[in-house]
């Protein structure tokens, strides 16, 4: 290579937009880990770390989906319901004796249909994303409920052993398969967002849809893509939950859409669109997981955990506002 690689690598990393916020929350994450490590030395045991990673993985996955949607300036409230739908459809099919992999494919198709519907409603029919996905959220939960006639399913049975190992119990290099799935998908989606045309279009739509359109970006196409990504991520999480429990639960994924917003926002993704990187979502999901796990270890009841996490969400956004130096927070007005 010629000698004009600009600046030093560290400076280059710092130049990546959104990196500042990611670095500040990373420091927060490290402090949290140290605190929990001191309170409870087994926090750093291999066993706990492995479990912790498995707790973080689903939050990361839905966080990726929600981050995609948030960067276009929209929101997806249907994420949690799609998780439930995915669990219930796949489990129902398997309890009826269908081949697990065929069930997975059918489930994926159903979930993608929700993503497509979201995209069409928001960008095609110009519904406010909050309303459109509130609707699909309710519908998807309904589908989860009727999938098995308003009951949770029975055990998906021994035939699904391979499925359960693939999505949850299997290990590779000592690490659970859910974690690997999350890593692989993160790498793929991070690449798409940061290095491809589609990714650039996603930021452009979130920053200024009019200007993006006049530059030849398809608003409908881009918006639909991000909702489909969100639905794929939710679908995978639903499958891991089915694999983990060995059955389908109708209320699986309850409130996950909000956890996904939290992970994204802690990691610096702006709810106003146009800003954020998936590295931040990893840190956001990790902070979420570490808090859950650490507080559980420390014996804190669920109520306390909720309160702490709520406070952290608000603090991290506040921190971002302060760090960016008094920039006024503007409430976005959707046209």
């Amino acid at each position, binding site marked *: 290579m010629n000698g004009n690689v600009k600046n030093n690598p560290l400076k280059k990393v710092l130049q990546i937009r959104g990196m500042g916020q990611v670095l500040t929350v990373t420091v927060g994450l490290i402090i949290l880990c140290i605190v929990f490590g001191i309170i409870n030395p087994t926090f750093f045991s291999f066993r706990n770390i492995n479990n912790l990673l498995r707790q973080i993985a689903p939050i990361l996955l839905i966080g990726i989906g929600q981050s995609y949607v948030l960067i276009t300036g929209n929101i997806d409230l249907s994420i949690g319901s799609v998780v439930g739908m995915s669990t219930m459809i796949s489990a129902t099919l398997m309890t009826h004796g269908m081949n697990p992999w065929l069930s997975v494919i059918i489930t994926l198709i159903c979930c993608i249909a929700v993503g497509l519907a979201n995209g069409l409603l928001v960008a095609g029919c110009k519904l406010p994303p909050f309303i459109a996905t509130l609707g699909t959220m309710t519908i998807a939960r309904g589908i989860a409920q009727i999938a098995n006639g308003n009951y949770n399913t029975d055990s998906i049975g021994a035939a699904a052993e391979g499925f359960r190992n693939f999505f949850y119990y299997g290990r590779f290099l000592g690490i659970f398969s859910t974690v690997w799935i999350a890593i692989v998908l993160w790498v793929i989606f991070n690449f798409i967002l940061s290095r491809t045309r589609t990714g650039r279009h996603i*930021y*452009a739509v979130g920053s200024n849809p009019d*200007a993006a359109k006049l530059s030849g970006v*398809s608003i409908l196409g881009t918006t639909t893509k991000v909702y489909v990504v969100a639905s794929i991520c939710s679908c995978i999480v639903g499958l891991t939950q089915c694999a983990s429990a060995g059955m389908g639960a109708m209320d699986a994924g309850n409130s996950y859409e909000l956890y996904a917003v939290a992970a994204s926002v802690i990691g610096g993704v702006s709810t106003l669109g146009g800003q954020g990187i998936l590295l931040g979502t990893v840190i956001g999901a990790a902070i979420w997981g570490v808090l859950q796990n650490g507080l559980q270890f420390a014996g804190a009841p669920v109520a306390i955990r909720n309160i702490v996490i709520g406070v952290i969400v608000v603090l991290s956004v506040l921190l971002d506002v302060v760090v960016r130096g008094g920039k006024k927070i503007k409430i976005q007005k959707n046209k």
Partner: protein
Amino acid sequence: MEEKERPVVEMEHITKIFPGVVALDDVSFELRKGEVMALLGENGAGKSTLVKILSGVYTKDEGTIKIDGVDVGDVTPQSARKHGIAIIHQELNMCRHLSVAENIFLGRELSKHGILSSKEMEKEAERILSSLKIDISPSTIVGDLPVSKQQMVEIAKALSTNARILIMDEPTSALSDKEINELFRIIRDLKEHGHSIIYISHRLEELKHIVDRVTIMRDGHFITRADFSSLSMDQIISYMVGREIKEKFPHVETPVGETVFSVKNLNAGKMVRNVSFDVRKGEILGIAGLMGAGRTETTRAIFGVDPKEGGNIHLDGKEIVIRRPKDAIKAGVVLVPEDRKKDGLCTKLSIRENIALPNLDMLSDKASVIHSRKEHKMVGDAISSLSVKLSSAEANAASLSGGNQQKIVVGKWLARRSRVVIFDEPTRGIDVAAKVEIYNLMNRLKENGIAVVFVSSELPEILGMADRIAVMCDGEIKGFLQRGEATQEKIMALATQFEKKIVEVEL
């Protein structure tokens, strides 16, 4: 000291540093009672920054601000209001979803017992608007008004505060001649009443109508302050740009060839009716007309932003179908849009990302992965060919000065090998030197056989640069004029051929 000579504002040794840029370096400024002070300088010279410090938008890093001879420390938006300072910003700052009256009274709504007095506000707004001879209903939603009317509302808003120090940052860049004359009348009136005005503009020819003194800045430095009458226009320009500019309209003659681009019987709504024109190889087709004549609507319909109702478009003899901007870009037709904040820039993205956005197809491989080295090269070329003043291509587009933002909007289209380039008011808000750069660029396109369509409201530049001029009025082309025969009078005669007696405010 005579009352008239008394300085109301004195700013001394003002320094302001943004990350990576020294926007102001030891600048001094003075404004007297009852005068119009022009603040002049190239794009990025620091004019807007200086007045934003005076109005409390930014805080200075160093220096002193005295108002009526009293050191006031740092100005905040609240204290600015208390001192009677009001500013009309370069970019429109309005709530598009609120009505005209609501915008005028934003932040100081009239109320009785905590309940908004909408009626009173509308009545008061009506009074202000009519005193300014602005023909808009106070209940109109601002987003529905054309840009020029929005600008007038912005002016009405500033005037309604009864400020005695009024700052106007390029107020006329979006106004029609009629509205400009109206504004000048208002300014003279205010001057009579002892108000002081800071006036920023790149349209140097309008200064002679209103300005008493000028302050000239370059690159964040104070250059000179003088009576307007003591300087010639050439002197002002050379103070501004640091060198002389020989030719303001560098027109070149090129042999005219076959037709490249032709539009036939284009119809799109009320503002585009039966529009037909050809652009031939080696010529610039100017489109002149008053504000609201349908020129922007025509360009938007051609480019596929707004739907067409009929008509066809031929490129190099073949018919092309444009339903969306994407189709137009693919076919080689590009549009540099008029409203940079709304249609031109993604302000939250970097300058690099903005320039690359329409060109990603050329910068990425089959798997649509963006080739980062190609991208940096394209962006570097675009920036240097228009000499954009910036700290780094990674900075947000929002951090650029207004004129430099406009250069990015133009620059992002030039990297493509297009067949037709449509410019809609490309020199709005751009300094004299940069205007010449854009004209040269249009010449280069024309010499390369690319069809250039040039929409502008400034007659001198249309007359100076276009080879043929189409004049629009009421959504129709009223006639074509050849370069040799065109004069301001002939253009105006065609531009005012209204059919209907009453010109409605277009909604």
